[in-house]
C-alpha cells in the first residue's frame, strides 16, 4: 500500500495531491491481547496433541475402519432422508398455518406444538415402541370397517422408526422457519402477481417461495448440521448402525473409549465443514437479484426488507462461517 502511494507520488500522477500520511493511533493493547490469545491456543493444541490418553495412533487407525465408515454412511442417510421428509412436511405445515380453513390452521398448530414440545429422545423411544403399542396397523374408516391390515414391525422397521421420528420432530422446527420466510416476502409481490392474473398456487411457487428461500436457507442449513448430530440419538429406537453408536461400541470393546470418541468427533467436524460449503453456494443462488454481498450479479436495494437492507448497509459480514453450530 505504502509502496503504491510513493510510486504514484514519484511519477506525480496521484489524483490526491495532498494525500495524508499520518501515523496511526498507537494501540499496544492489541498486540498484548493477540499474544495472550495465541499462547492460550498453543497451550490447547499442545494439550491435545501431546496427551497420550488421546492415543492418536488408535484414532488414525480407526478413522478409516470399515465399521466407522459404515456408521458415517448411515448417519448421512439418516440426516439427508429425514431432512428431505421434514422439508416437505414443513412447507405443507406452513401453508396450512396460512390457510383460510380453521381446521388446517389448528391441525398445523397442534402438530408443531406437540413435536416441538416433547424431547426428541422420548419421541424416538415411542417410535421404537410402536410395534408393541400397536401390533397391527390397519387402513379403514375409524370405528368402521378395515381395508388393509399389516403387522407394525414388518412396516415400521428400526430404520423407518428412526427416520420418521427424526423427520416429524424436525418438521415442526422447519415449519416455523418456512412460515417466517413466507411472511418476510413483501405483500406487494403477491398483489403484483395477482394483478397479472396469476393463480394462488403459481404465485406461491413462482413469486413467494423463491424469495422466501433467501430467509429459509440459512437456518435450514443450520438445522441440517444440527440434525447430523441429532442422529446419534436414534439409539433410543434402538437403531445401532450410525456413527456415534458404532464408534462407542468399538471403544468399549477395545477398552479405549476416548480415541473412538475423537474419531466420531473428527468425522462430524469433517461432514459439517462440507455442509457449510454447500450452504454457502445455496445462499449465493437464492440471494440473486437481492444485492447481498454474495449475489450472482450486482448489489443494491431490493424490496426484500430487513435482510436486503442489512446486506446493503454492509453492517453484517456474510461468509461461510457465519452460521453457529449448536
Amino acid at each position: 500500500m505504502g509502496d503504491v502511494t510513493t510510486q504514484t507520488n514519484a511519477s506525480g500522477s496521484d489524483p490526491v495531491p495532498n494525500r495524508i500520511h499520518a501515523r496511526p493511533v498507537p494501540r499496544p493493547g492489541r498486540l498484548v491481547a493477540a499474544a495472550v490469545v495465541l499462547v492460550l491456543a498453543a497451550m490447547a493444541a499442545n494439550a491435545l496433541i501431546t496427551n497420550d490418553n488421546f492415543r492418536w495412533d488408535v484414532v488414525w487407525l480407526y478413522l478409516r475402519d470399515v465399521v466407522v465408515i459404515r456408521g458415517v454412511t448411515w448417519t448421512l442417510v439418516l440426516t439427508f432422508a429425514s431432512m428431505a421428509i421434514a422439508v416437505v412436511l414443513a412447507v405443507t405445515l406452513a401453508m396450512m398455518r396460512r390457510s383460510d380453513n380453521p381446521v388446517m390452521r389448528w391441525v398445523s398448530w397442534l402438530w408443531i406444538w406437540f413435536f416441538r414440545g416433547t424431547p426428541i429422545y422420548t419421541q424416538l423411544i415411542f417410535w421404537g415402541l410402536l410395534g408393541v403399542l400397536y401390533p397391527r396397523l390397519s387402513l379403514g374408516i375409524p370405528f368402521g370397517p378395515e381395508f388393509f391390515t399389516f403387522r407394525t414391525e414388518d412396516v415400521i422397521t428400526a430404520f423407518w422408526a428412526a427416520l420418521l421420528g427424526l423427520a416429524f420432530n424436525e418438521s415442526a422446527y422447519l415449519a416455523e422457519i418456512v412460515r417466517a420466510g413466507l411472511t418476510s416476502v413483501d405483500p406487494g409481490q403477491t398483489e403484483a402477481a395477482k394483478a397479472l392474473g396469476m393463480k394462488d398456487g403459481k404465485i406461491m411457487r413462482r413469486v413467494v417461495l423463491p424469495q422466501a428461500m433467501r430467509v429459509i436457507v440459512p437456518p435450514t442449513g443450520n438445522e441440517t448440521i444440527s440434525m447430523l448430530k441429532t442422529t446419534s440419538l436414534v439409539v433410543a429406537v434402538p437403531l445401532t448402525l450410525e456413527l456415534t453408536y458404532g464408534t462407542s461400541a468399538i471403544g468399549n470393546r477395545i477398552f479405549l473409549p476416548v480415541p473412538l470418541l475423537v474419531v466420531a468427533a473428527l468425522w462430524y467436524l469433517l461432514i459439517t465443514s462440507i455442509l457449510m460449503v454447500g450452504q454457502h453456494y445455496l445462499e449465493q443462488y437464492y440471494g440473486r437479484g437481492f444485492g447481498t454481498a454474495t449475489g450472482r450479479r450486482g448489489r443494491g436495494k431490493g424490496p426484500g426488507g430487513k435482510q436486503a437492507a442489512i446486506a446493503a448497509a454492509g453492517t453484517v459480514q456474510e461468509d461461510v462461517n457465519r452460521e453457529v453450530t449448536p
Partner: protein
Amino acid sequence: MSVVADSAALPADSTDMVSVRAVHKVFGHGHDAVHVLKGVDLDVARGEVTVILGPSGSGKSTLLRCINELEEITGGTVVVGGDLMGYRQDAKGTLHRLHPKAVAKQRSRIGMVFQRFHLFPHMTALENVMEAPVQVRGLSKKAAKQRALELIERVGLSDRMDHYPAQLSGGQQQRVAIARALAMDPELMLFDEPTSALDPELVGEVLSVMQDLARSGMTMIVVTHEIGFAREVADHVVFMDDGVIVESGPPAEVLDTPKEERTRNFLSHVL
C-alpha cells in the same frame, strides 16, 4: 343493501370500458370499520384516459384496486369490458361469488402499475415481462420472449433487459413494470400513483411512456398528483374527496374553472 338491488339495473353502456356503479368499500367490522368509498359512480369509455385527483386518504387508490378486484367491494357493481367483476348474477338477480380462478382470469385482462413498482426481484427485467404470458397464458417461452423484447424496446430499456430490478433506477423499474403489465395485452391499464416514489428527475421518462401509451389508444385510469400530465393527456379528470367523486369533467373545466370549493382548495395546494 339497496346498492346491491340496484345492480339488477345493469347492463352497462356497451361503449364503456369501465362502469362503476354506487360502489361502497368498508374496511374492517363493527367499531373498527372504515368507510372508504361512499357510493362512487365512474364511467370510462374505450380508448379514454381518466385521471383521478384528490388528497391522500380520499379513496382514489382504493377505487382503483376495487376495479381489478384486489379489494372486494362492499356494495355496488364494477363492470369491466361488459363483465361483472367478481360475481355471477343468476336469473333471479342473486349474486354468486366467482371462483378465484375465474377472478384471476378477469384480472388478467387488466394491467396494473403500482406506486412501488413491485417487480419480481429474483427475475431480470426480461424475465419479469415474460413471466405472466408464460405462466398465465401458457405462451411458449420463445413467443413470450419475442413479445417481451418488443415491449422492453418500446419503454426504451433494451440495453437493461438482463439487469435485476435492484440494478435499475426507479424510473427504469417503473418502465419495466409498465412493460410487464402490457405483456398481457390488457384492455385497460390502471396506474396507482406511478411517479410518486420516483426522484423528480426520473418522473419525466415514466410519464412520457404513459403518454405514448395513451396516444396508442389504450384505455387508462391514472391516479396521480401530476397536474401537468392530467392537463395534457387526460380526456377526463375526476376529483375525489372523502370517498366520493366531488367533481368530474374535461381537464380544462375541472383544473381551470372548478365549480366545487373542495376542488379549488385542493388545486391551490398542489399547483
